[in-house]
């Protein structure tokens, strides 16, 4: 087992190396120059330009830039942002909790609704409920997040006044940062107390729905098809024949087996949260890494983009490795 885990970790290294090359090269292939952008719309003094370029190390040949980036990376140093001058790692850690919090709530939303809907659709196969649910999930799956987010805001925030439009918490609460997860920090804070927690929670609702809609549709459809497959198995018929109530058969026998592929999909979906975060965070002014990456791409902030991509890639790989390991643990046949 330990050998297998080690092997997994060794396999990760070339992937990370490849990603570092891609992250480094792709942003440099995009036209545009961070220094020109930093110097703004007015004419730049050629001398200032050259000085800045040299001070950022951008005057060196590409391969030299890459190796110094790689060297620093091996020491755990992602460099400093060109725009803010702060360490990329610090900037990442400032924003990551916001994305994580949103991601967890969005996934919870997708799972809590998606699995029961999927089961119901499978159990009531070919009913009106099934058809309408599958139709709706197809719509949900194809929904542009940007438009959907705006519609949610117009309905729930402006017309009905139920939820706040955007941001993480109402402006009157100043929450001291402990974990960066506002639900926890606001709970711990003495100043705002319960009101602060509720405010943070209500700010999460719409972005979580916007971000969780696609995963919800995927989970519901996946659960349905997986359940249908399991419900057709012999042992289900046997269980029914034994005289067990249908509910017990579905909840105890069928669901557990049907969950295995759903967990795989959840692992993948969790990895793709960052992609969803980019759009959701822009719409809801959510201060997470998605919004941060977009701003950095627009500013051609090379170190941030490189560092951000590496960090995100590591997370995705980490989550998928964990999922793989859970598999190995759960399914002895795969260990060989």
């Amino acid at each position: 087992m330990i050998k297998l885990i080690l092997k997994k970790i060794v396999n990760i290294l070339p992937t990370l190396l490849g990603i570092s090359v891609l992250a480094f090269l792709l942003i440099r292939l995009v036209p545009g120059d961070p220094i020109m952008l930093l110097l703004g719309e007015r004419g730049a003094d050629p001398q200032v330009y050259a000085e800045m370029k040299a001070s950022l190390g951008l005057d060196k040949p590409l391969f030299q830039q890459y190796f110094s980036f790689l060297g620093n990376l091996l020491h755990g140093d992602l460099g400093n942002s060109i725009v803010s001058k702060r360490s990329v790692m610090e900037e990442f850690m400032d924003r990551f909790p916001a994305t994580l919090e949103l991601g967890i709530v969005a996934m919870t939303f997708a799972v809590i609704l998606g699995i029961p809907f999927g089961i119901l659709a499978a159990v009531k196969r070919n009913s009106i409920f099934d058809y309408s649910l599958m139709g709706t999930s197809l719509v949900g799956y194809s929904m542009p997040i940007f438009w959907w987010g705006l519609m949610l805001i117009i309905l729930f925030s402006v017309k009905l006044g139920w939820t706040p439009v955007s941001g993480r918490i109402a402006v009157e609460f100043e929450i001291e940062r402990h974990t960066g997860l506002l639900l926890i920090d606001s709970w711990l804070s003495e100043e705002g107390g319960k009101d602060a927690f509720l405010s943070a929670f209500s700010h999460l609702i719409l972005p979580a729905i916007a971000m969780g809609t696609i995963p919800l549709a995927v989970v519901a459809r996946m659960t349905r098809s997986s359940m249908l497959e399991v419900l057709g198995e012999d042992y289900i018929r046997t269980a029914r024949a034994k005289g067990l109530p249908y509910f017990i058969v579905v909840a105890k026998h069928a669901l557990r087996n049907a969950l295995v592929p759903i967990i795989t999909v959840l692992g993948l979906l969790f990895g793709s949260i960052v992609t969803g975060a980019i759009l959701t965070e822009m719409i809801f002014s959510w201060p997470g890494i998605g919004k941060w990456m977009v701003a950095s791409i627009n500013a051609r902030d090379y170190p941030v983009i490189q560092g951000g991509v590496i960090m995100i890639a590591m997370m995705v790989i980490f989550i998928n490795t964990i999922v793989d390991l859970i598999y190995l643990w759960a399914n002895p046949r795969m260990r060989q």
Partner: protein
Amino acid sequence: MKAKILILSLALGLLLTTQTTWAKTFVYCSEGSPSAFNPAITTDGTSNNASGHTVYNRLVEFKYGTTEVVPALAESWKVSPDGKTYTFNLRKGVKFGATKYFTPTREMNADDVVFSFDRQRDPAHSFHKVNGGNYEFFKAMEMDTLIQTIKKVDNFTIELKLAKPESPFLANLAMSFMSVHSKEYGDQLVKENKKENIDMFPVGTGPFVFKSYDKDTLIRFEANKDYWQGVPKVDKLVFAITPDPNVRYQKLKAGECHMVIEPSPADIPAMRKDSNLKVLEAPGLNVGYLAFNVKKKPFDKIEVRRAIYHALNRASYINAIYMGNAVMAKNPLPPTIWGHHDRVTDYEYSVDKAKSVLARAGYPNGFEAELWTLPVTRPYNPNGKKMGEMMQADLAKIGIKIKLVSYDWPTYLAKSRKGEHQMIQLGWTGDNGDPDNFLNVLLGCAGMNSGSNVAGWCQKDFNDKIVKAKTITDQKARAKLYIEAQEIFHERAPWVPVAHSVVYRAMSNKVSGYKIDPLGGDIFKEVDL
């Protein structure tokens, strides 16, 4: 059952949180995150609003809502007869705002002014290289070569010696990059070995005191209780960073902010109809234009440029591109600036005239050319591509076949500075309300080196006039020179000026005391709820 509990708890949560009270907190929905809280090292309006107009003051400032220079931290000043020595008498009793990280022990004095100016000017200054040490405005306004010495005469008197007489100097001093910082705070940071904090945790004499900044979310300020012009009317000022204009509008409607930056023109009619909102407007200090690269054929010929001037139906662009939210330009200077040449006769729109002028230039059948379209949305040109298409159609009528070209913004700027274009859409928003800031920067020979003169037009008689206008202090005499210069511009037509956009601000009906700043900032020192 579980579902019921979930729904109940959700509803409870919503009920409790929507009853928010604002007290005297003014919430401004801004568009982006500031890159730093020091206008000397930043150039974007976002950073300026969050620092220059809130936390800091300058020796002289623009009177709220105008471009008139009035006393601020300097109570009065004297200019020597040769126009080269400025002596400022500082205001007494001005206090720096106390924050969590700094408590001032003395009032503002000459040391603070010397400290602030020298940081940008003197490479040996202990803060010069801090946070990149790029003082772009200071260099762009040529303050580095202009200011020769800064002398503290006594605690409340400062003497500045200039290399040459320069009349826009006072207007430059009123710009945010010349803000006065606390030397005492600087000394404290040196001791704590945290010099870089000077630009991230600001200390100033302005109407508001910086409280905190949650990255990409909120910037909090509190009223400066010791503000020398009187305590601001709101207790707290919050910038809620909201990048999407649609969401900003929804936040305004939902009462989550009291004012939004730059509403999108398409929303203005609906905003005007909303009885809870009000919309203010003022002509902007800007110009959108189409520049010819006069160094390239066939644009080296005046007739070709004039023919194109006649061929472009600019009035139609005002309706289609600006939705009527602009006035047609006939000069490079916007009408809000003194020195604007009001009596110049604009080139009339006439296809026939354009054709005959083009034929006289030796192109009876037209020619092929590239036209670069602005890739970003700017007040002075909200839709470069669409404007390009309209120009293309207009020029086709006189036989000029246009290929539209565009690049992403950084590439566009870099290539245009190298002069790779034939015709290019660009624009400018004024910095200090001085005609020099338009004519010299955009059309002067000095702008050829820096790349801001994209027409590549260095016309001796024009340049002589604007250079001379810079050295005299009498505003009337200067205005005369600028009017003459605009006549030369009009005759030689290195650009087709297209429009000056109108600036809008949308806010809740509860807001009072806000004035639109012609220089494009958002200033809250007098707002009330």
